[in-house]
């Protein structure tokens, strides 16, 4: 176990993948058309299996089976104690290592997806540019979509949900550290599988992979469906892990109405993912059956139906939108009080807003299918549920505006992201009400208008929120400040480029340009050229951001433990953060938003507990003792003393 790392994982993946390929090649009938699909699927499954063996993912379960539990030394090793940079390349269980690994993977995926976006926009810069062939173009569109969907799903709950949430709730690690590492390495295993699709005919179906087009697609589609199956496993495990951590490991005294709002947002996001992605996985399993052994699930002549696919897909697909947007927007909600120096406005409404969005989001999937004709009688009810979402979403805006109201706005990079989100998300939301309207959607569905709309939500709100979160937590995660100069340049390039790109795209969509077309009517020329220029500006801005992150990480100004003067727990631990975060677990007596309410400390000494010998950071008083089951269990969950510190209504 101790010698395993990314190198052995890749070696294992290659060996088992090759073995699987060899066996599949020799034992399957070669006369059938679906053989190459079977070979692709078996090979990629072999790769994933070998990769996980090579990284040591099965070591724990097998020793458990044999009756030998891991020794304390094993666990300390797994946590990455004293391994320097090497721990980032191992099956390391420390949530901070996993958080950084997620951050790097997110950036890699965003870079690849962004490059693909540049290719799309280059192709569309003139009506018939001929830059990409139709075959390549369709694949690039599909790969861009899926890569970005995966990147944006993990971009907040991966890096910050893993790194920050345990610190924020006063825990020493995640509930299931080994499952945490497993979810991360499953993700790493699927990335090569996904991109191998590009070399096997691509995925010329768009990321939505609508059947039966996906039934007739080349073997790249098998890589696609295998990647999604692995992703569904990874996200179900990560979701169960993060949710359990939040449910059971909040610090003593951190009742539900003292829990930082970001924790709510992350829990809502991963909680939604738990039922959503298995549905996606099932749609892919059925697709795999169709493709490899001639199943009839989506084949009309065999009694199958393409509407089955679209229902399963959107049952996942709409909750997934909130899986992406919620934690990003809520991260901005978390940092708005810090940079307005005022308590979060109407905490209860904020929580209800999040819960309302989660609840409604599982009842709106068929608004993606108004025009599919699968159930025209249901279009009215789905219009109702869709438009109802505007109410809890409005509450999120109210909370942010109320927090800014008469605050002292400190316009740091994270706070600028909040402003950008307020601009972008309003546009994304208002264009959302057009397409929620059934007749208007008949006119706009499948056009560039829809593409622009969801980029305004997923990118304008989601990615902007993630960048804000990165700027906000960068000092805690890396111990250095994010350089303000390049940060600002990148912010303006990305935001201006973004609005230029997608306002142009709205225009061509309204004028009637369909989505996912390799060339288009010259009448749409101007809007597309504008859009492409905007896209290059975004690309430039993202490169500057990458530069800012890399340079700051290596040479940035060393950050104090609490550079923003924030009151949540993650800022009470020193930089660099010790292996288990808190030598003694904190006890929480108020919510973390008591700005301007006198020197009410968020943390006080627990009665009758000796002050530890090592001095703690000033913000922490003395606290509970080390292995304190009560504190680790989250203390009283129902909030017997919950009324202090919250619910005050001051004018």
């Amino acid at each position, binding site marked *: 176990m101790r010698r395993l790392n990314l190198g052995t994982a890749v070696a294992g993946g290659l060996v088992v993948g090759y073995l699987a390929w060899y066996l599949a090649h020799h034992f399957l009938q070669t006369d059938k058309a679906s053989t190459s699909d079977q070979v692709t699927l078996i090979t990629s499954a072999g790769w994933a299996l070998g990769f996980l063996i090579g990284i040591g993912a099965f070591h724990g379960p097998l020793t458990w089976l044999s009756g030998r539990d891991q020794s304390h030394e094993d666990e300390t090793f797994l946590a990455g104690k004293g391994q320097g940079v090497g721990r980032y390349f191992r099956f390391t269980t420390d949530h901070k290592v996993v958080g950084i690994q997620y951050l790097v993977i997110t950036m890699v995926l965003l870079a690849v997806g962004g490059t693909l976006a540049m290719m799309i926009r280059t192709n569309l810069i003139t009506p018939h540019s001929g830059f990409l062939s*139709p*075959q390549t173009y369709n694949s690039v569109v599909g790969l861009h979509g899926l890569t970005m969907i995966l990147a944006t799903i993990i971009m907040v709950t991966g890096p910050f949900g893993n790194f920050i949430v345990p610190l924020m709730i006063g825990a020493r690690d995640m509930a299931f550290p080994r499952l945490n590492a497993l979810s991360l390495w499953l993700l790493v295993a699927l990335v090569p599988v996904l991109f191998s699709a590009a070399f096997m005919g691509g995925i010329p*179906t768009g990321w939505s992979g*609508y059947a*039966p*087009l996906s039934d*007739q697609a080349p073997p790249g589609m098998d890589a696609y469906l295998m990647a999604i199956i692995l992703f569904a496993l990874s996200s179900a495990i990560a979701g169960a892990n993060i949710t359990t951590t939040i449910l059971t490991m909040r610090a003593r005294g951190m009742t539900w109405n003292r829990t930082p709002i970001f924790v709510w947002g992350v829990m809502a996001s991963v909680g939604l993912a738990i039922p959503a992605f298995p549905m996606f996985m099932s749609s892919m399993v059925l697709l795999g059956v169709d493709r490899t052994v001639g199943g009839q699930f989506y084949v*009309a*002549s065999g009694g199958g*139906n*393409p509407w089955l696919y679209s229902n399963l897909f959107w049952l996942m697909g709409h909750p997934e939108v909130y899986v992406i947007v919620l934690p990003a927007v809520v991260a901005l909600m978390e940092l708005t009080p810090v940079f307005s*120096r*005022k308590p979060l*406005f*109407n905490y209860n*409404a904020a929580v209800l807003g999040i819960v309302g969005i989660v609840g409604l989001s599982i009842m709106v999937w068929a608004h993606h299918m108004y025009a*599919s*004709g699968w159930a025209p009688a249901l279009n009215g009810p789905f*219009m109702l549920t869709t*438009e*109802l979402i*505007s*109410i809890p979403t409005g*509450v999120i805006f*109210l909370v942010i*505006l*109320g927090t800014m109201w*008469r*605050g002292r*706005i400190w*316009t740091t990079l994270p706070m600028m992201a909040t402003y950008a989100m*307020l601009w972008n998300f*309003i546009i994304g939301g208002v264009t959302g*009400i*057009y397409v*929620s*309207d059934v*007749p*208007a959607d*008949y*006119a706009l*569905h*499948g056009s560039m208008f829809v593409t622009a709309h969801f980029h305004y939500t997923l990118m304008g709100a989601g990615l902007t929120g993630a960048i804000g979160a990165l700027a906000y937590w960068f000092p805690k995660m890396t111990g250095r400040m994010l350089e303000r100069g390049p940060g600002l340049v990148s912010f303006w390039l990305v935001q201006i480029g973004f609005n230029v790109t997608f306002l142009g795209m*709205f*225009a061509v969509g*309204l*004028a*009637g340009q*369909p*989505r*996912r077309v*390799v*060339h288009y*009517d010259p009448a749409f020329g101007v809007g597309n050229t504008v859009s492409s220029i905007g896209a290059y500006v975004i690309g430039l801005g993202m490169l500057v951001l990458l530069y800012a992150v890399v340079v700051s990480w290596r040479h940035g100004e060393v950050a104090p433990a609490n550079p923003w*003067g924030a009151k949540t727990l993650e800022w009470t631990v020193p930089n660099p953060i010790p292996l288990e975060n808190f030598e003694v677990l904190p006890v929480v007596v108020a919510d973390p938003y*008591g*700005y*301007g309410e006198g020197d009410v400390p968020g943390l006080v000494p627990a009665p009758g507990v000796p002050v530890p010998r090592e001095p703690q950071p000033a913000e922490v008083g003395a606290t509970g003792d080390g292995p304190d089951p009560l504190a680790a269990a989250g203390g009283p969950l129902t909030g017997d003393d919950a009324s202090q510190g919250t619910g005050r*209504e001051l*004018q």
Partner: protein
Amino acid sequence: MTTPQPFGVRARLWSRRPEVRGIFLIWAVLTALLCAFAFVPSRIMGPAASPTMDAVKSTMTVFTIAAAPVAAFVWAVALYSLLRWRHRGSGPPEDARPSMRSNRPATAVWLVVSSVLCVFLLVWGLAEMQSVSRASAAQPLVVDVTGQQWVWTFSYPAQGKVESDQLYLPVNRPVVFHVTSNDVIHSFWVVQMGIKVDANPGMTTTTNVTPNKLGTFDVRCAELCGLLHADMETTVHVVDASAFRSWVVENGGHV
């Protein structure tokens, strides 16, 4: 505990506060600008060729106007906070005072306004759905539409064996399209008439419209359907009734 002042007095004091006046001013200007902008989307959509498209275009305008005050309010508060409440310095500012946790009237007003808007959107949408689906009442012309990679085929079952790869429609007569596909999912979209329905293999879907303008318009495929998806377009010719009759006869049908 001080006795609360009468509502009228409080409201007057409130409305004299500088931030209230400032935000109101910005809000009014932005709302006016957005209302002016509200006519832009429907202009970009181009001239309508059916009552359905007219309904869609007015929906775009009405929804923009309905959303304008809300969007303007959000941006007004954001803008004002940047202009007046901004802290310039390198370190964290002092905490803001008074430290406000919540405000019931503000929350209540916000919820009521967003609920009223939501109900309005819903009622408008339902009424609009009703009006666009009523069009097929009288003696509609039936057209069978078949999508296949990557062409559209139109046939006219009541007119005999007329088949065409371009769509011919008589003006001002309701049309019902029965749409299906031979291979993968396509989406039948008559751009200037504002109608769209997927062509699904194995199933038949319907949509209807009454073209009310002579001329040629575009049919495009709105669902990615493979290699030549971008080329899966054709033309709609909306002609007068006699021209339509002669076109049918020329193509071997009967009227």
